[in-house]
């Protein structure tokens, strides 16, 4: 069944408001895009939307009680909440080195969660 959905393209700062005509996840038409990127963006958002996630995990014995972490690559949007729950369970021990892998191949996505910085022990 044909449906229309509005999307804001974020491929560039212009931020076109796209009118997407689609049948389920199949895109039939993208209107009001100023360039081809609009179609590419819409397709990605409909089939496999992904986001970078940055958060924190607990660390014991460090300069601060938290160490920031992030996804090495964008992860599927539907997995964000589950990832946040997993991250709350993590507790590292200082010292921590920036780039250390906190969660490997999270949810079988092949994506690692890594620390954003060193956290020296105190």
């Amino acid at each position: 069944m044909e449906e229309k959905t509005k999307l804001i393209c974020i491929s560039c700062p212009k931020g076109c408001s796209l009118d997407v005509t689609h049948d389920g996840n199949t895109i039939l038409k993208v209107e009001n895009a100023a360039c081809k990127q609009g179609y590419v963006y819409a397709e990605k958002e409909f089939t496999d939307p992904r986001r970078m996630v940055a958060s924190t995990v607990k660390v014991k014995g460090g300069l601060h009680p938290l160490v920031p972490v992030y996804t090495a690559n964008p992860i599927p949007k539907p997995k964000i909440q589950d990832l946040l729950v997993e991250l709350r369970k993590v507790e590292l021990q200082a010292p921590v080195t920036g780039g250390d892998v906190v969660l490997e191949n999270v949810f079988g996505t092949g994506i690692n969660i890594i620390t954003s910085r060193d956290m020296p022990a105190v």
Partner: protein
Amino acid sequence: MAVKELYDVIVIGSGPGGLAAAIAAKKAGADDVLIIERDIELGGILLQCIHNGFGVEIFKEDLPGPTYSQRFIKEVRALGIETMLDTMVLDITPLKKVYASSKQHGFVVLEARSIVLAMGCRERTRPMIRIPGTRPSGVYTAGTAQRWTNVEGYLPGKRFVILGSGDIGMIMARRLTFEGAKVERVLEVMPHLTGLTRNYVQCLLDFDIQLQLRHTVKRIIGNDRVEAIESVKVDEKWKPVPGTEEIIPCDTLLLSVGLIPENELSKKAGVLLDPRIGGPIVDDSFQTNVPGIFAAGNVVHVYDLVDWVTEAGYVAGNAAGEYAIKERQKETGSITIQAGDNVRYVVPQMLDKAHLTDKPISLQMRVINPIEDPVWVEAHDGSNLVARKAERYVRPGEMVTLKLRPKHFDDVRKAGTLTISVNPK
């Protein structure tokens, strides 16, 4: 760490502008570069900006703030740039004296051949936008809330309203949602978003957080802790539209209503500010009206991208480094060292002013007559005693050494001739 008294370049602040400036100054050939940072670690506000979006220009990578920052911190360490942490600069004079205070170093007075101001900016506050209402706990600037949430490990509330659709406001909306808080609303007094569309989509739309344009906070409600805010729509002239008021229950109001360059120190140093932006008036190398005082980054004006702050830091730091080297060269000229009472000769006979930096200089001498009682070995500039030390005795066969230390160098520099004498105490 030993604190020297005279530096080629002192950089005030270790955010992206300060780090880049210190690196560039060192690479330009300045030997002694010092960063003074008020926090307990280098990095500045970027350390609490844990979201991505940094480094696209400089590294062609999309990095979180702390990762971006750490790359520069590592370079600072590798280059041997000195740092004073947990230290607050209290005063800078037009002659480039820097007064600072810390637990570890005490009260220090330093001098620099050039200075880079990199204090960044501060957040606009509630009184600046004159939000009426009570004065309870729970009204915070977005940056303060960000520090608590991301660095110190405490959430400053459970139900938030955010005033301001700048990037910090929207990013905090997502951050707080990630950590289980509820963001009831983002209000923006302008008729348009003030941050990036990307952040609107990924921070607000993704999490169904409502943005209301042309809306502001009419008043804050709650005596002890925020209990609610009253929002109101504004017309084209920013006047509240009667009848559009809405009470939004919440326990926290975050303000993301703009940044102002932080220039209290600059003013003390005699730096002239541009009244429109609140930052120093600078030339193309970011030099201010005070020769040898440069300014880098958000202290000059608030940038959109951290990468550009880094670029500005490089320019200012490079110029500050070159300035310092020129100053050092100006100090060439030498000081004659001559033998005085009971001294046969002194080596060296000349001192190069350019070498009066951080290392002590040893003056070696032989006496004419032995003295078997305690003596003073003294260096005088005319009648002014510059340095001295005691010896239990002196004999012509045994060389005597007098060390001139950095604390003496100010006096040494003023002297045309230094006279060395050895007399009984």
